[in-house]
């Protein structure tokens, strides 16, 4: 068998198990050294989000648990855990509350810690629940508009205005 990258005989047969699917490589000594060297670099303890996520979810989760977890959705922005897992980006600040259990071990793998110790907002607004509520109201209004339920939409619009006014006053205080 020839090396996948050159004409030399393949003397190294590597099965890579770190990706989602096993991948086989047949390489000559030179290319094998290069390949192994590259993956050694990639696996240095500066982990990528995708890698950490994949690893974390493989450990201690059965297929059913994972399927159930994937369906879990944030009540504020509507993102599912499945979407987060695939895009690697969260949907809104409330995700840190509603996916807290799932995120904590992930944060520990990335940062080695799960508690913030740095700067804090001076103004003393440490609970963002009131503000994130606006995200939900806007989303519900959009849904109402899409359903052509304009009565509901206009009710929601009024509540959004009220909430925005309250915030502005809060911000100015």
């Amino acid at each position, binding site marked *: 068998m020839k090396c996948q990258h050159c004409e030399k005989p393949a003397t190294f047969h590597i099965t890579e198990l770190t990706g989602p699917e096993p991948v086989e490589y047949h390489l000559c000594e030179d290319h094998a050294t290069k390949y192994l060297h590259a993956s050694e*670099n990639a696996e*240095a*303890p*500066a982990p990528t*989000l995708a890698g950490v996520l994949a690893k974390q979810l493989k450990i201690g989760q059965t297929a059913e648990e994972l399927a159930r977890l994937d369906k879990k959705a944030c009540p504020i*922005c*509507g*993102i599912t855990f499945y979407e987060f897992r695939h*895009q*690697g*980006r*969260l*949907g*809104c*600040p409330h995700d*840190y*509350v509603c996916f807290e259990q799932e*995120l904590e071990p*992930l*944060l520990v793998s*990335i*940062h*080695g*810690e*799960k*508690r*913030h*110790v*740095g*700067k*804090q*907002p*001076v*103004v003393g*607004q*440490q*609970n*963002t629940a009131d*503000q*994130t509520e*606006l*995200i939900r109201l*806007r*989303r519900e209004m*959009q849904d109402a508009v899409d359903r052509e339920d304009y009565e509901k939409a206009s009710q929601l619009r009024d509540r959004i205005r009220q909430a*925005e006014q309250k*915030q502005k006053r*809060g*911000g100015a205080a």
Partner: protein
Amino acid sequence: MILDELVRRAPEWLRGVGPESDIVVSTRVRLARNLAEFPFIRRCNEADRTAIEKTVRDRIREISSWTDLLYLDLNSLSPIDRQFLVERQLISREIADATGARAVAIEPQETFSVMINEEDHLRIQVMHSGLDLNAAWAQINGIDDLLEERLNFAFHERFGYLTACPTNVGTGLRVSVMLHLPALVITHQIEKVFRGLQKISLAVRGLYGEGSQAMGDFYQISNQITLGRSESQLLEEVGDVVPAIIDYERKAREFLLKESPKDLHDRVSRASGILRTAQTISSEETMLLLSSVRMGVNLGLLTDVPIATINQLFIHTQPGHLQKLCGSELDTSERNVERARYLQDHLRNESEPPRP
């Protein structure tokens, strides 16, 4: 247009002054912040993005010490202008290539910029010349305070500042130092240095951040961790390794000077020769050769070019700058010709008359 004025100037961070500035080009710190009352960017519809942009713009305009800020609507800028801002490190490649409402506020000396609707609602960054971690932090901390008085940032008492990607949560702080390491590259020691840095959770990136190749032997060293350590700890962690890397680079330069002075001098002189005489030249080759010339000037092997000129050429010869400077759109081969002309013009000896 005001952008055209910016083109001809050199940004503050490229002045090439400060201690160790032959190796440490610049210091950059950035903070990721999000408004609590909007979804993170990926989950935003256009109305959300527009509302975020407007909210932040209105609040920025209220800040009395910021009246001279240049506020740019990135959606209405041409691709060349956006490319120019990327090359200038004032915006990221990601926000340049995105669509929809997004903007950047730039301080005229280019010591800071605030990107709006990048991966997070706000990305604040401060850039200083040379190694200047504490001053850069003091400045960005003040900027963050000014904005925080006017905006509700998403914050969680245990997780800190909340970000779209969990890799930035907590402080939201990325501390980067840009280093010029040609001798470590020539002596094949650069990989070893990087592996050492990765072991202590520091990341190494190329000139233009994540995923970018190291161009012109420039490397950015930055923290990977953002949660569970204070801002001053993070600054210290990056700051602590820089002297060691500077030391390695100096030793590698000394080694080259001692073991193969002719080869080194030859490399530098040839690089300078090609840059002064080429009729058409790519951006990659230019970076590579300028890197050798930069090291040559710093080692005293070349004496007829000021270091500031070299620093500026690194940025002025890139596609966006080149097209802005000559005032028209150019395809790749036209750019290569224009780049060669530009290099000849700026590397000619001061005694020679400028080309008409």
